[in-house]
């Protein structure tokens, strides 16, 4: 596992640094937006917003998180399918499903670290403006973003790893259907919503094994 993490680290270190930088920049931007909001408007109006609309003022951070996860998935697996390089990974002297699992674990850890970074950043920023009752709930609200990011990471990984363009199109269509689930915002504030969101995230991870299995059957011939 250490060696696979080493390889994936080399492949993704620049992309990871860029992802952390972009997410940090968006966090800062969100912090200043809320700060300006409090300066420009009557704080009572903002509080009313929070109470009536269940608003979450740092919501925009979920966009760079999701985009980073998608790009990481693509950048991690496209070099494997390009030139059928995944054949080298398949022939490493260990079980090839295990090789793929370690690769996915590296990607997932990266997404989770990014999420932790964002969540910590949002909590820290929010603690300046909101009471604990609100910012204490941030991880449970943002867990939904984590699952969506995991879903997007896996979708990008499986599409990138698939060696044939036809297969890529088919997988992309299927995964677009799955992504639609995350557009249903009614689940978002609830724990059940997060629990339900866990299922498609897990299923999408399993989908990466499908294009990988094709390499032994002649995929990318």
């Amino acid at each position, binding site marked *: 596992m250490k060696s696979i993490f080493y390889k994936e680290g080399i492949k993704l270190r620049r992309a990871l640094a860029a992802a952390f930088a972009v997410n940090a920049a968006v966090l800062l931007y969100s912090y200043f937006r809320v700060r300006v909001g409090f300066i420009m408007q009557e704080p009572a109006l903002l509080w009313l917003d929070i109470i009536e609309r269940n608003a979450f003022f740092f919501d925009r951070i979920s966009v760079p998180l999701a985009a980073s996860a998608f790009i990481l998935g693509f950048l991690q697996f496209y070099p494997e399918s390009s030139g059928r390089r995944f054949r080298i990974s398949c*022939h490493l*002297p260990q079980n090839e499903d295990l090789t793929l699992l370690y690769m996915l674990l590296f990607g997932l850890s990266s997404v989770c670290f990014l999420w932790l970074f964002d969540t910590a950043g949002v909590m820290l920023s929010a603690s300046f403006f909101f009471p604990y009752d609100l910012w204490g709930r941030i991880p449970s609200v943002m867990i939904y973003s984590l699952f969506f990011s995991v879903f997007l990471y896996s979708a990008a990984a499986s599409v990138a790893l698939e060696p044939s363009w036809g297969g890529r199109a088919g997988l992309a269509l299927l995964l677009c259907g799955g992504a639609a689930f995350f557009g249903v915002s009614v689940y978002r504030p609830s724990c059940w919503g997060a629990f339900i969101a866990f299922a498609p995230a897990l299923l999408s991870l399993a989908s990466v094994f499908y294009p990988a299995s094709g390499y032994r059957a002649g995929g990318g011939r």
Partner: protein
Amino acid sequence: MNSDADTVISVENLEHSYGSAKALKGVSFSMEKGRVYGLLGKNGAGKTTTINIVMGFLKPSGGVCRVFGEDVSRMSPETKRRTGLLHEGHLAYDFMTIAQTEKFYKSFYPRWDGGIFRYFMEKLGLPESRKIKNMSCGQRSQVVLAALMAQGAEVLILDDFSMGLDAGYRRLFIDRLNEFVREGGKTVLITSHIVQDLERFVDYAVIINKGEVVKAAPLGDIKKDIYCYRFPAGSDRRLIEGDPSVMDVSVNNDSVDIICSVPPEKAGEFFSGRMGSGDFYQRDVSLEDAFIAVTGKY
């Protein structure tokens, strides 16, 4: 007769189709320990399909391929460790540097020979921090070959090693490989579009044509009963081209080569009536001549 214990790779009755087109029609051969085998075939003969199956990256429609007695599509980690693959185009993790490549592979291969790897890299004269993607095709081939040799594999499967290499790098590749294989008693299966390169390396040739093995024999036997005669340029060859004894007529810039089954003692009589010229001499038959004689040009 060699025992099964000496058989490193066995290919039994392989069949494969792409849609309705049958690419392999029962290909069989086996490889014994310590020998170098060349898999030869024209474009579309089934060579790539066979090598993909032998490497374990294509499931055949029928038949089986075993490496060290294991089905190649389900190789155990230990068998993978004993089998080194060189993929077409010298595939490598090109986002890695030379030093990173060594560190990565070393962790997977307990018998990793750092001496060989570093020797090759010193000869290459590139800094260890150079990324593989920033190397020329020839330089990349040397890194891939060094990594393959350092793994300590017992059997090497090399798919079209000559792809993208100029004459110098092709020769260097074969020189290095020859020394390594002879010293270590390795078993090798190699393919290349450039048959002349294989002549310097292989002991045994397996020739595939139209999805079937048409000849499988030691290199000397492949050339047996095949002769080549050279005539001056412009010799009239119309009468000879349809003769059943003639396997190929090749036109060069200053001569015409005739590959046939006519032995030297009968050549004078044979050609006098057909070529209208007794001005010819016999030259050595190359593996490429024998290959063309067996498979034809078309």
